């Protein structure tokens, strides 16, 4: 446990202060067992269990979002986009169904909530962490592959120059690369979304459904319209060398 603690401190202790984590040794990656990174952080930071970080779960078109947390029955359900609030430092299992584009399809992605925001009081629901499932994600999962997406809070000094309302393709990396490390370099990792074709079975353990963090469904009426996600297309976008790039991206 001591080694784990030291390793975790080295890797994940600095969130807001140490944004350039590229030079650190990263024992964790997107390939770590689901829930491990969140458990480390929860152990180190001792997240306040009374604080619930809002998440905005979007699916292509319309659909139903259900959330499990350590039990084989969902805590609740809401139509997409669903605004739920959850404890940081825990793993949650989702069930996405009734999708307009994918009828008769149910997928069970997981959300590993690594960190939380600190918005001004009363404005928590205005700034949820976006958890977005695209149609390509669904197709990939149905094709037997696993999409692992690390959502991070952008470091302002490394902000990308692009239209904020444009939905870009997420920055893709090869599985050999450490997406968690890259996210740590670009900002503060907030959540890991894993979208695969895994289905629960009657004998699935409780851990399949998450680690038991608190979940609360909230009114999605005041969700963050327009989306706060600005996704990167590739590495080239990071190099803001063009002097005249002030007018916006040239791509």
């Amino acid at each position, binding site marked *: 446990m001591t080694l784990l603690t030291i390793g975790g401190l080295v890797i994940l202790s600095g969130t*807001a202060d140490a944004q350039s984590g590229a030079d650190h040794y990263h024992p964790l990656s997107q390939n770590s067992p689901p829930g491990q990174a969140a458990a480390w952080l929860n152990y180190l930071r001792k997240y306040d269990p009374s604080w619930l970080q809002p998440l905005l779960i979007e699916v292509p078109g319309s659909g139903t979002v259900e959330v499990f947390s350590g039990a084989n029955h969902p805590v609740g359900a809401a139509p997409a986009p669903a605004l739920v609030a959850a404890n940081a430092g825990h793993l949650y299992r989702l069930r996405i169904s009734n999708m307009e584009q994918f009828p008769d399809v149910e997928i069970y992605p997981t959300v590993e909530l690594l960190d939380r925001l600190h*918005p001004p009081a009363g404005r928590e629901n205005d700034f949820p962490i976006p958890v977005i499932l695209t149609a390509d994600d669904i197709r990939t999962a149905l094709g037997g592959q696993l999409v*692992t997406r690390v959502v991070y*809070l952008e*470091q*302002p000094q490394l902000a990308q120059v692009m239209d904020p*309302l444009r939905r870009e393709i997420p920055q893709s*990396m090869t599985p050999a690369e450490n997406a968690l490390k890259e996210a740590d370099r*670009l900002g503060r990792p907030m959540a890991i979304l894993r979208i695969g074709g895994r289905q629960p079975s009657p004998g699935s353990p409780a851990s399949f459904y998450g680690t038991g963090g608190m979940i609360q469904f909230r009114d999605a009426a005041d969700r963050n319209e327009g989306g706060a996600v600005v996704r990167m297309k590739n590495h080239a976008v990071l190099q803001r060398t063009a002097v005249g790039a*002030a007018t916006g991206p040239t791509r």
Partner: protein
Amino acid sequence: MNNLCLHNAGRTLALLITVTLTGCASFPGSYAPLEPTAAASSEKAAGPAGTGVTRLSAGGSSHAVSAEYDTTVISKQPAAQTVARAEERAEPLFPPRTPAVRPETATDADNPFAAMADQQIRQTSFETSTPKDSGSHLAGFIAYAENASISTFREAEPRLPTSQPGAPAAADVTVAASPLAQAYPDEYIFDGGDRDHPVHYYGDELQGLDTEDTVAEFRDHEGGNHVRASNRVAVYAPRFGAVQTVSGLNMDVKVDKAAGATDISGLGTLEEERGLDISAASSGLSGLATRNGASGVETARPVHMSEKTETPILANQVDQGLEAKTSDGLGIIETTSLHELHVKILEPATGIINTGIDTKAATSQATQTYSTYRLAAMVGSEKGGRKGELHLTKEASPLIAKPGDTITFKIHFRNTGDYNIHDVRIIDNLTPRLIYTDGSGHVDVGNNDGGSLTVVPNREGSQTLIFELDRPLQGTESGTITFEAVVR
């Protein structure tokens, strides 16, 4: 206000103040005892609250003085109630006095308090001054505080609270919607202040202007350039990105092969070793012994030859270098150093001669005269006032925003000195998360349009806004810059 008077002036002084500003309305010329009659009570009741006490005498005890405080200064009860309280006392606290009689010989011009008779206390500050005439008609006051100076009120100078536009603001102050902005800066967009490298001059060039920086540069009346930073504003506007991988069985196999890149790097190491071998072989080319050996000369010769060939080469190089340096150097030294020496010699010589004369003249002839001139110069500089200084205060509204929202920024600037400052330029290097809204920027100096704006792209994908004032900013003059930016 009266309470503040007591804090400032003390009890005795406050008594004098009270009498000065209240009793004088009835007794502009002199003090005379007054009977506590109904007429007197009604007169006080008609006056403003807290100003009803007009009874003071030289024989007033300390107890009477405290009663004065209770009924006049500290109490804010209406005057009618004040009178009622005074009348309920078993015995009068103050000796009776006769109605005020204005001396026939006294005029308003002679009475320093007559002009204040109708004035009301409007400010809390005061200053002491000596009355024009402390004659017999002031005997009542002097009995309480002989040799004490008389206090007169004047309006306080307006003071600017720090939150008021144009007030000095510390550059390290951050205005944010939440105090957690310092702890979690990655959730905020900062603008203003002087981030990272301090803005400074390198020669005549302004350097250290990072994104988020908001600084003003100006030239004071002595010609010196200065740079001042504004405070920081923090807008809560987190933005997210994502990094993803797609993995499957086939891709895992490819990843394993890609890991063989380590072997490739090992080959690179071997290449470096080969390079070392090649360099060793090239050094072996100096084995002129084989050629010398072919000439059939003695075996010692190759050694000599090699030594000679190496030595002359080295010697030639060294000699040539030395010769070149010495010859060129000598030539240069002869030409340039002579000039330098000549100049150096001449200048000190001139300087010594001049200063020697000055020193002698100053010390032996007119020391007093010189000191008098310097004193006069100092007085002149004091009259000129404070050196020009520029303070910036930056504001943003709203302080909570989402991508796509428009934020209005205001930069209040103020010359807090007395001298004019010139060539005022206020530069705002926007962070990449902000994009300037075209046409939204303008400069107001004294409610007039007083400047221009130049927008240039910076190297971070945003813009640098340069506001230039059209004219010097006069002492204590202020203005405001307003512009809008969209959150990205």
